[in-house]
């Protein structure tokens, strides 16, 4: 394993917001393996937390297991993509089954965004409208595309991004974990540069805070990640805080080439 521990700085914050009584978001960070997972649950009573909790816990433990198994051989990019896709499917099955078998969990589901840093790359998988942004230099890019009605409307040219802010259909996702027996995560891999700052967030952030404000906050406070995370949540709440808000910030401080495989070890030795 590469030295992800020193390469990544990770902080997180989660808040129920100003309106909701409880927090249905779940987040998890496994810094040693370079994994961050965020899920925004939905469902009555506490089923939302249950769904997001299951998703996050399963992804973490399964990815860890898979990494332990393949300790000797480094996972390459496509293997990681496959791993995340598979684990999303498994989380979906687990939640779906729980929802089917226990009436109180009926109808629960969750969005999911999984970010996994490995070998100077980032693999992102997502389902639903939880997002991953990247701040590189001064530029904030959204690396995930929401699985939501609104996004479909934007894509089809029916409304503009500007109009989308005022849409009343913000809360309709078109894919979620645990609702149908099958679901497919959208998985992509990006190359990572030192200095990149990544943000995973639930829609409670980006529905309340325009991208420009997210960009401003991240770029002006990147020297103090805990403060940046706190400020993001605070601004979302100042703007109304209508939903649970969760953020995970990950800054890439150093390169993290893979050193576990044969080639990696050789490279490390040559250094």
């Amino acid at each position, binding site marked *: 394993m590469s030295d992800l521990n020193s390469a990544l700085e990770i902080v997180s914050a989660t808040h129920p917001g100003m309106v909701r009584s409880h927090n249905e978001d779940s987040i998890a960070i496994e810094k040693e393996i370079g994994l961050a997972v965020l899920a925004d649950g939905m469902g009555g009573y506490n089923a939302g937390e249950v769904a997001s909790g299951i998703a996050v816990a399963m992804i973490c433990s399964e990815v860890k297991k898979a990494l332990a198994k393949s300790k000797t051989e480094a996972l390459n990019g496509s293997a990681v993509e496959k791993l995340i896709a598979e684990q999303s499917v498994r989380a979906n099955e687990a939640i779906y089954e729980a929802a089917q078998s226990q009436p109180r969990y009926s109808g629960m589901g969750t969005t999911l965004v999984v970010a996994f840093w490995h070998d100077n790359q980032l693999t992102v998988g997502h389902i639903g409208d939880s997002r991953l942004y990247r701040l590189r230099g001064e530029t904030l890019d959204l690396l995930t595309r929401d699985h939501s*009605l609104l996004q479909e409307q934007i894509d089809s040219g029916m409304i503009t991004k500007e109009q989308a802010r005022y849409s*009343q*259909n913000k809360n309709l996702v078109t894919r979620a974990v645990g609702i149908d027996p099958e679901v497919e995560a959208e998985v992509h891999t990006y190359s990572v540069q030192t200095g990149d700052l990544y943000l995973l967030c639930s829609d409670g952030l980006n529905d309340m805070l325009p991208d420009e*404000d997210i960009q401003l906050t991240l770029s002006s406070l990147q020297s103090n990640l805990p403060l940046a995370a706190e400020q993001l949540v605070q601004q979302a709440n100042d703007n109304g805080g209508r939903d649970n808000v969760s953020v995970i910030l990950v800054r890439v401080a150093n390169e993290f080439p893979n050193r576990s495989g044969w080639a990696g070890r050789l490279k490390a030795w040559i250094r």
Partner: protein
Amino acid sequence: MAKLIVSLEGSVIRDYPLEKERVTIGRKPHNDIQIENLAVSGEHACIVTILNDSFLEDLGSTNGTLVNGNSIKKHILQNNDVIEIGKYKLKYVSDVPVAGRTTVDEFEKTMVMRAPALARAASARPTTGSTTGGPRTMALPSMPPPTPRPTLHPPPFPTGGEATSGGLTSPGGGPGIVSGAPTSPDGNPTTDSGPLSLPGGRGAALSGPSSSPGREAASGSQTSPGGRVVTASGFMSSSTGAAVASTPGPAPTQPRVGQAGSDATPSTGGSVSPGVAAPATTGEAPALGTIQILSGSGAGKELDLVKNLTTLGKPGVQVAVITRRPQGYFITHVEGASAPEVNGKALDAQACLLKDHDVIELAGVKMEFFLKK
């Protein structure tokens, strides 16, 4: 349901509920809202309603369409928007929720949209569409009856599970669950409204651009890459259907999806948008904060704190951030071994509320915070 209140010179003429997916406005008699005035074009404008959103589009009218005084081509209607066509004013009013019926909390909850009604409408058209009611809206992929689907491509739903489902699943099995079937506010499916989605609509959505003739701007291309139809497809495709010019027969009543959404949301609309635009709105109330530099080379310079966040200081040495919040301006230490001072007192980890004429010392520079009236 949203409605249009048509008035002329201040006197109300009539209300038109936007109960159809596509409502046309024009001078000719076939329009849903006919305005017999020569300033109005034959087909002047139309309003497409999808879920809780209504989109107004000018259909190339001679004299144009105004919304709140601005000429528009396309516009997403907000509660209380006033549309002007000729001398006529059409006020768009979306439902005002009855107090106590639903909390804000409920109607903004994330929900999953699916398309079972569509799948079923296409495969077994006549009676289905109402598996809903209960909390389980699951349309299993294996479920769709193997009825031939004449108008569709052979593999209509490449994406397994989600594609066959449709409608809206509110989590929690709450009352928000709706399949494509129009649902009455208490969550009971009202099956009587007939088949929901035109085969045409769905066909168009599924079979790609070529098969939707007369596609209009409002409908756009619904075929998402990879054939992921789910979504929108459900509703948007039916919009396509409607938009594909004069659909055979009267357009079906619009799927009044999710009462959780439909009658509850409008109120949200009013409140959500300001929320989103809040930095401006909420910030406007307190006076504008300004920093004036008192010492050093920049002495005398002023900086208006118009942004939500303004960082001050030298990166790597000492940096503070001033945040603009509804409660006022706050200063927080960002980086640097020593903390900035306010009125001679070093900041701790907490944000500090700035008062008029507070003096900040940061990286060796003194500056004064004051509020501009």
